[in-house]
């Protein structure tokens, strides 16, 4: 599909993620894309979102560009409180108080389990050996996936990333589906959406298998199925997601001052 879009796929993904965040919620964002999506939501339709970072930086917005990390000076220049990891990830997230988190994924599977630890290129098997390609590990995403009431996963939609079963569960989705999360006493409810560069997947209410519910104006059901490593089901209510409105794009680009999402 090569229409002349006035926005990039990355921008569509950030806007679609931002639409998942509601006004007044207590929200936790990671660095990079998820922070852009979160601050877009705050600038556009959720002015009263209460955002925190993993480090316990409260009430701050980025100053002078996209922060390099959750503890960067760019997110430390207008905070109302600095605390710590046990406060942010423990008191507010693992406790079940946080409404929504946004996390990234190198690999995600049909039950919304996320791998950010490594690529083995095979099943690990009974003996653990280091991955051929070591990734960044779970960071705070495991804590968000365990404790936040719901969370949104952002991932580039490619077949190698959208796999039937992740090689390593860094951050738990619905594990092997159904009510499997219940066995582990998580405070949080699990992933509510996987927002990709091509569309949006949401869990079936009973089986928890992720199904396509929205495609974007520049993508199609065929392209999305072909870019997914399992036999992706299409929700009977699947529709095309609304294109970004002018106000949405303006708000996003004000947050993404350095144009990270406009790079091709």
């Amino acid at each position, binding site marked *: 599909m090569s229409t002349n879009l006035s926005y990039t796929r990355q921008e569509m993904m950030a806007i679609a993620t931002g639409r998942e965040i509601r006004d007044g919620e207590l929200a936790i964002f990671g*660095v*990079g894309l998820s922070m852009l999506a979160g601050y877009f939501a705050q600038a556009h339709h959720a002015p009263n979102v209460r955002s925190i*970072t*993993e*480090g*316990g*930086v409260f009430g701050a917005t980025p*100053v*002078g560009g*996209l*922060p*390099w*990390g*959750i*503890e*960067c*000076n*760019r997110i*430390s*220049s207008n905070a109302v409180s*600095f*605390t*710590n*990891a*046990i406060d942010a*990830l*423990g008191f507010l997230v*693992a406790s079940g108080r946080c409404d929504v988190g946004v996390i990234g994924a190198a690999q995600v599977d049909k039950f919304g389990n996320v791998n950010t*630890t490594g690529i083995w290129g095979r099943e*690990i098997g009974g*003996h*653990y*050996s*280091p991955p*051929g*390609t*070591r*990734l*960044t*590990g*779970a*960071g*705070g*995403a*495991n*804590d968000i*996936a*365990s*404790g936040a009431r719901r969370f949104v996963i952002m991932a580039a939609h490619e077949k190698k990333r959208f796999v039937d079963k992740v090689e*390593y*569960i*860094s*951050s*738990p989705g619905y594990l092997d589906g159904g009510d499997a*999360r219940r*066995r*582990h*006493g*998580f*405070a949080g409810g699990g992933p509510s959406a996987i927002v990709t560069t091509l569309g949006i997947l949401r869990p079936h209410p009973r089986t928890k298998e992720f199904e396509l519910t929205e495609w974007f104006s520049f993508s199609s059901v065929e392209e999305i199925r072909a870019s997914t490593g399992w036999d992706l089901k299409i929700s009977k209510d699947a529709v095309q997601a609304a294109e970004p409105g002018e106000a949405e794009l303006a708000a996003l680009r004000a947050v993404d001052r350095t144009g990270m999402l406009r790079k091709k």
Partner: protein
Amino acid sequence: MNPNKLVSLKEAVSRFASDGIQYASGAALPVGSDAVAFGRELLRQGRKGLHALFHCNSQQLNLLAAAGAVGKAECGFSGLEVFGFANGLRRAVESGRVVLEDYSNLSMALRFLGGALDWPFVPATVNVGSDIAWRSAFSPDDHPSEKKIPAISDPFTGRELGALSPLKPDLAAIHVTLSDPDGNAIMIGTEWSRFELSRAAKKVVLLADHIVDTDCVRQFPNLVRIPGVVVDAVVWQPFAAWPQGSPGAYDIDEEHMRLMNGRLSTEEGTASYVAEFVTGVDSLDDYLARIGGEAIERLQKSSSSFLLDPYRKWIKPREEIESLLAQNASRGETP
């Protein structure tokens, strides 16, 4: 009246760090606070076989792993955030030279808390139900692991939980923004897990960007989250976290973050980095010269520098700090 715990960086490493210890750094943030300069001195003095306990990877762990000083590591996050993968650590883990045990950012902090409280374990509702609990790099055949984060049940409700093992590092080097000579310290920015770590470690060395008069900490006692009673030594080390940033004091040196991580991606690059920025640097003046006068000026002009304003009048000038250091050196005694 206040004891003077100031020592040089060289002395702090020679006195408190030996081969094979469990070594923790604070805050161990990937682009922010960390005692990076302490790691450079560990390499200068040839420390080996370290068991690194880092809340997150930082450029310090990246460097120590690349240079072969670390055998085992435990952390919650092993990248450099927006700067990407930590090439030195990554290479060491993929080759098996460093065995990396994975946790999460909350569980590392909880394990330091457990160590600080002398608890046998910390109950956890995170990491359970994931491969962080089921897979152990330290016990690779224990699968699903029963030793790393064993399942326990809540004695009141029967709910299944995970038991996290506590951490009591032999040594913690903790970066702080401000400390008085006794080790009463103020951290600007997120503490991350420095509060717990300072109580969990058997020995604590502070690396302070600035040394302040004790009147300063008496003015803001609520902000002194690391009191001198838990501190063994204080090192005055401007730009202690470089090339990472220190809120209020200096910004991230983006260019050096990339240069360093780029060089650490190969053996040859690591050797050249170590020669130029580690072993080839043997004094504080030398260190500041490597950062560069222009960079120092630029990095100090941070959008966050107003955070340091309330404390500036108590910052001790270099001569005074050197005279306090000289007093300790001439006494030749352990502070």
